[in-house]
């Protein structure tokens, strides 16, 4: 049953992505993207709820669950940020990322067919897992906003101003403000996750994961500190948001 929820969530995200791209190509605002992503979000909740019941813990025990939790977090922040800042086009860029993550989770055998109950759950461990993945959702969305900025920046610089995509992209300043706020939000959640990670019981095998996580956290904090104190061009901030997010996915290799 949980897989069906995930398949439905992925299909809704596919529809959201295709619908959004067709609308943008025709130069129209994609009003339905939020609806399809909302449906995707509900199905993700159904999946995570069933897996959570089976695990009797936060469902982050295998790579598939982590990818779905990450997609859920990404969708959640899109629904919050997209409507708050009226960046509906963010959904058009978010939906394909969700599709990729969930397809990998479904196709690669990353999901355990019969999830086992996790014995002896620890609250620090749960906090670490949940806030870290939520942080990744915010950071992923910051990377998506970064990609949008890079596209818009290139079009403005090269004076290619006729495409439907150009007309629908939000203004440069709004993208930069949203990206920075998402980076701060992701950085804050990641800080809580790291602290919880140090507090939870761990053995020497977890050292690689902790080191990778601390490196990622440090890198994000350095970028935010530079942005706050010295300033960064939009292009560099966007490139860093995208590059750091891709690199930070490596942390999961140590889970």
């Amino acid at each position, binding site marked *: 049953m949980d897989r069906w929820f995930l398949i439905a969530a992925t299909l809704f995200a596919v529809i959201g992505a295709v619908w959004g791209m067709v609308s943008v190509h025709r130069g129209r605002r994609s009003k339905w993207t939020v609806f399809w992503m909302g449906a995707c979000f509900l199905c993700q909740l159904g999946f995570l709820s069933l897996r959570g019941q089976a695990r009797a813990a936060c469902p982050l025990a295998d790579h598939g669950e982590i990818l779905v939790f990450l997609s859920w977090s990404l969708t959640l922040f899109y629904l919050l940020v997209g409507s708050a800042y009226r960046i509906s086009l963010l959904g058009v860029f978010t939906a394909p990322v969700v599709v990729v993550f969930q397809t990998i989770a479904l196709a690669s055998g990353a999901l355990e067919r019969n999830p086992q109950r996790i014995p002896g759950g620890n609250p620090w461990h749960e906090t670490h897992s949940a806030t870290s993945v939520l942080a990744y959702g915010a950071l992923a969305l910051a990377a998506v906003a970064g990609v949008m900025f890079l596209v818009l920046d290139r079009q403005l610089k090269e004076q290619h101003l006729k495409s439907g995509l150009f007309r629908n992209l939000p203004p440069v300043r709004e993208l930069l403000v949203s990206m920075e706020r998402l980076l701060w939000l992701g950085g804050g959640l990641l800080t809580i996750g790291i602290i919880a990670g140090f507090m939870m019981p761990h053995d020497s095998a977890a050292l690689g994961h902790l080191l990778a996580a601390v490196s990622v956290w440090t890198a994000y904090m350095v970028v935010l500190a530079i942005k706050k104190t*010295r300033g960064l061009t939009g292009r*560099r901030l966007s490139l860093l948001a995208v590059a750091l997010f891709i690199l930070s996915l490596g942390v999961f290799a140590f889970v």
Partner: protein
Amino acid sequence: MQLICLGLNHKTAPVEVRERFAVGTARLGDSAKELIATTGVAEGVVISTCNRTEFYLVAAESREALARLESHLEEKTPGHHDVATHFYRMERSEAARHLCRVVSGLDSMMLGETEIFGQVKQAYQAALDAGATSSVLNKLFQRAFGVGKKVRTETTIQTGSTSVGNVAVDLAEKIFGHLKDSEVMILGAGEMSRITAQSLVSRGARSIFVSNRSFDRAEELATEMGGSAVRFDAWQDVLARVDIVISSTGAPHAIVRREDVEKIRRARKYRPLFFIDIAVPRDIDPAVGEIEEVYLYDIDTLEQLAEEARAKRQKQIEECERIIDAELAKLNLPGT
């Protein structure tokens, strides 16, 4: 009962003639009432904008009503013979069609502009409130507003900016969103700078700085814009705080060089900076546009974008006319 339209516009009359027949917004209702009283027609609406003055009448005898209105207008401007020379006359379906074209922006100086829709609505409302309209004009104007909306939603007649100033403002909004948090500096107090800066102010730009070789002229323009004048040797200091720079000096060489902008990047914390260079020869060194956070547009690019929008609107005319014909055919309007 027959529908008649008598009017003049930017195509048939120069501004010195148009201004003689212009009616202030506050007097539109009274003028419509006066129109009925003096010409003995059943219904009347007076439309008056900076580019046109038109009288829509409904009369039992159109020729007599027209003659009475024309002589009434001639009396207002004795010795000029403006009515015979500059006014156009339309009757029945031609008049109805003309009103639909006016409301849709097809008869405007700037093809597809939307302001005319509101202006006609205001004129009609004034006549309605003054009791100068009845069944024929009420039905005609309501239908014309419906047609105007349909033309705008089903075609792209209003998309794209058709003037250099509006293109620049649209680009500024694409970079900064709402302009209420944006500051603007004008280099060179020329006419084009003034028009572009006015467009930015009308869309909410927070403050304007004007720098010009003649400080008196800078102060004059700054006062007009509600901004501040800056001495020409001090514009670099202001560059660190502004978001948009409009330049149109008459200098024979570049005024803004790459090193001028490089110097203030750190102080600006690398925030986006939009340069609009409307001078010929150009005031801003093209190398400035290579700086990461700088967006530089010169007059040729802006003019090309405006021209493309104008051409695109021209292509839409046929489709707009088809919609108007189809809608009028459905109407079966009395008086047409």
